[in-house]
C-alpha cells in the first residue's frame, strides 16, 4: 500500500494512457514517465541510500528495469506503486554494495527492566504534541539524524514499513527475510528511535 509516502499518483486515466503508449513503444512516453515520476522516486532512493550519487544511480536502474518490464505491468496495478516497488528494490541492491557505516549497538537503546518486570527508568510523558513539534525544521532534522543512527538492518525495516508504508510481507520479500524477522526488527527500531528522541521530547512544554 502506498498512501502518502511522497510518491505522486497521477490520475488513473492519465496513467492508463501513459502505460498504453509505453507498451506500444512510444519513445516520448518514456520521457514523460521519467519526468512525472523521477522526483518522488529520487526521494525514496535518497532516504534508503543517504547518498545523492547512489540515489540517482538507483533511480536510473529503476527506470531501465521499468522500461524492460513495462509489458508485464498489469492494468490492476497503480503505476506509482509499481515504480515505487522497483526503486525500493534497486536502492536495496545498491545499498548492499555501499561501504558499511560504523554502527551503534541497538541494545543500548532498548528499554531495560528490573527483575520484577518494571522498567529501570519509568517512562515520562512527552511534553509537546508530536504533530506540532515535528513541523519545526530543527526537530525534523533531529528525527532524521536519529533514524540514521539506527543500525542498518533496523533502519531499513523502519523506512520500508513506517515511512514507505510497505506491508510486513512486502518488506520481508524485498529484504529476503521472514515476516516475523520484519516484525521483530521494526519493533526494536521504533523502540530505539523512541529512546533517541526521548531526551528532546520529554523536556518540551505542551
Amino acid at each position, binding site marked *: 500500500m502506498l498512501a*502518502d*509516502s*511522497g510518491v*505522486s499518483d497521477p490520475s488513473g486515466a492519465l496513467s492508463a494512457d501513459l502505460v498504453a503508449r509505453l507498451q506500444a513503444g512510444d519513445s516520448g512516453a*518514456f*520521457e514523460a514517465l*521519467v*519526468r512525472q515520476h*523521477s*522526483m*518522488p522516486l*529520487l*526521494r525514496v532512493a535518497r*532516504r534508503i541510500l543517504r547518498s545523492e550519487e547512489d540515489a*540517482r544511480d538507483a*533511480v*536510473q536502474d529503476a*527506470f*531501465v528495469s521499468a*522500461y*524492460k518490464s513495462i509489458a508485464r505491468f498489469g492494468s490492476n496495478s497503480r503505476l506509482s506503486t509499481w515504480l515505487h516497488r522497483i526503486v525500493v528494490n534497486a536502492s536495496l541492491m545498491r545499498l548492499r554494495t555501499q561501504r558499511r557505516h560504523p554502527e551503534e549497538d541497538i541494545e543500548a537503546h532498548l*528499554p531495560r*527492566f528490573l527483575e*520484577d*518486570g*518494571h*522498567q529501570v527508568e*519509568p*517512562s*515520562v*510523558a*512527552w511534553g509537546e504534541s*508530536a*504533530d506540532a*513539534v*515535528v*513541523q519545526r525544521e530543527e*526537530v*525534523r*532534522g533531529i*528525527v*532524521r539524524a536519529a*533514524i540514521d543512527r539506527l543500525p542498518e538492518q533496523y533502519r531499513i525495516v*523502519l*523506512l520500508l514499513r*513506517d*515511512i514507505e508504508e510497505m506491508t510486513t510481507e512486502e518488506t520481508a520479500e524485498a529484504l529476503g527475510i521472514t515476516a516475523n524477522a520484519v*516484525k521483530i526488527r*521494526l*519493533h526494536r527500531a*521504533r*523502540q530505539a*528511535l*523512541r529512546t533517541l*528522541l*526521548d531526551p528532546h*521530547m*520529554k523536556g518540551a512544554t505542551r
Partner: protein
Amino acid sequence: MSKRPYLPCREIIAFLADYLDGSLAPETRSEFDRHLGVCPSCVAYLASYRDTIRMAKAASIEADAGEPPEDLVKAIVASVRGE
C-alpha cells in the same frame, strides 16, 4: 476487583506493536488494557511509541514539489535508447 496479577511492564512493551496493530487475542488485549489502567509509565511509553512512528514519517516525507534534475532525466532517457 480482579485478584489476577497484572502483566509485567516487560510483557506490555515487548508486545506493544501487536497491541497497536490489533493483532493480539481479545483476552490478551484486555490484560494489556488492565495493565495500562494502573501503570502511568506504560501509558507514557505507549503514547511516545505512537508519537515516534508519526514523527519518523512526518520528518522523512518532503513536499512533493520541484522538477527533476534535468541531467538525471537526460541520463535515464539516454540509457534506454541503447536497450
